[in-house]
């Protein structure tokens, strides 16, 4: 569903590192795996679009020999090699050889590389954590439904986990011949614990396994989950949830939100984005809480946008903090032929976001109704 990440290739160069020796590293942040990091050794590195560059970023915005990173007196120095589109350090284009500080972000085309200074032991620990997060991410993804490309309700989605992996998950399913449920949750916190918490909730919702609860009644579903998932019994984690049930016969959508911002309904003429929310607390904080629901009628040709706060809690490249009111107008921008709505909005947000990726999961589900 998501855009294909830029792959990084490194030219083989063996290097023995003692466990406690610190080395300078360039760690790709976008679409790369941990083993694609590269040690800056005494010979330095040429970064470019193609071999014989030491670190190849196959991106049309990257010049063949784009820049050089080398060590001088124990510090990393970056020099642009006359690239067409420039080399950027922490958002500023460099014009002369420039010190690359530890933690500095080097932007080459659409790729961002972070300068780190670590021991092999630290690298091993980070890799192990990364593998844990990758396993948790894979587990969540295994539960996600495929896009619906045919039928009276069609869906598309993007779930891009943050580097720390948030606890976003979503689903949609037919509850009966006429009833279609769609939901999205966001667990507080990051890491494999948050992801596994979302898996536990998703399994219940997917299997319709909430005891003594009618899955067609959003308020009841939220109340039952709140009873089951009180945070003191679940590692101090709570979650927000938006849950809706569409009746194909009457076109009525019943919905309820628990600590979750609105989802938005856009009619066929795309004249407005109508917020669909109810004021209820998050799930897991107050036992015995009741949850109110609301309903609306979905007109023919309308589109529903359900998303996590990672979609709009974005810091832009200009350093501005976005909120929900900054994102909603983007929903109403024209659709693009051949591009799914979720991909269009994801690309728009990423174009505006600061380099280095998002701080939270980006999860957006779009449902189009005949």
């Amino acid at each position, binding site marked *: 569903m998501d855009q294909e990440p830029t792959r990084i290739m490194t030219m083989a160069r063996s290097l023995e590192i003692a466990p406690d020796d610190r080395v300078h590293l360039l760690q790709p942040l976008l679409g790369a795996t941990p083993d694609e990091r590269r040690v800056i050794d005494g010979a330095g590195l040429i970064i470019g679009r193609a071999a014989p560059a030491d670190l190849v970023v196959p991106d049309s915005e990257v010049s063949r020999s784009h820049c050089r990173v080398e060590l001088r007196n124990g510090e990393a120095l970056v020099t642009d090699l006359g690239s067409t589109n420039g080399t950027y350090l922490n958002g500023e284009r460099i014009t002369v050889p420039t010190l690359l500080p530890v933690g500095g972000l080097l932007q080459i085309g659409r790729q961002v590389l972070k300068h780190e200074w670590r021991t092999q032991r630290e690298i091993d620990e980070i890799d192990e954590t990364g593998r844990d997060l990758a396993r948790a991410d894979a587990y969540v993804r295994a539960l996600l439904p495929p896009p619906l490309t045919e039928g009276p309700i069609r869906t598309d989605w993007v779930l891009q986990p943050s580097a720390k992996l948030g606890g976003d998950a979503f689903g949609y399913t037919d509850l009966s011949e006429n009833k279609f449920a769609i939901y999205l949750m966001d667990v507080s916190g990051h890491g494999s614990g948050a992801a596994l918490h979302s898996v536990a909730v998703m399994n219940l919702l997917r299997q319709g396994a909430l005891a003594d609860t009618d899955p067609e009644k959003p308020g009841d579903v939220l109340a039952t989950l709140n009873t089951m998932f009180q945070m003191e019994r679940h590692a101090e984690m709570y979650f927000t949830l938006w849950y809706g049930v569409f009746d194909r016969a009457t076109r009525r959508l019943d919905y309820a939100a628990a600590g979750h911002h609105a989802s938005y309904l856009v009619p066929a003429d795309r004249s407005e984005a109508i917020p669909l929310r109810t004021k209820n607390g*998050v799930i897991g904080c107050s036992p015995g809480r009741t949850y109110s629901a609301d309903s609306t009628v979905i007109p023919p040709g309308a589109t529903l946008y359900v998303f996590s706060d990672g979609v709009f809690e974005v810091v832009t490249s200009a350093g501005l903090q976005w909120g929900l009111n900054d994102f909603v107008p983007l929903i109403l921008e024209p659709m693009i032929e051949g591009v799914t709505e979720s991909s269009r909005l994801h690309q728009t947000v990423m174009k505006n976001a600061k380099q280095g990726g998002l701080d939270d999961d980006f999860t957006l589900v779009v449902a189009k109704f005949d």
Partner: protein
Amino acid sequence: MNIDFSDVDGFKKVALDGRLDTAGVGAVELRFSAGVIPAGENTMVDMSKVEFMTSLGVRMLLSTARSLGVKGKKLVMFGANPAVSDTVETMGFSDIVPLCASEADAIALLRA
């Protein structure tokens, strides 16, 4: 993200300054909980200099409030800007951590 502890009218006051986002929470969470929970006092949090709060910030406040609640004590907030107030309203946790308009209102609530 900065944090400052003081005592006002017999209550503990914690002033937060900065962004309660991933980095901000990471910077102050341990000091916040360590400065509030073991003391076990009624506590007010000055939110007037908090520019922005994500769900991680909410979790920090909620967890601390629940720990104080076990000891029969309250955590209240005051002075939040519109963006932070909106987050509190959306997430619906003001029944656990009440949000007051002013420090005087927070003190009155702690005394009640």
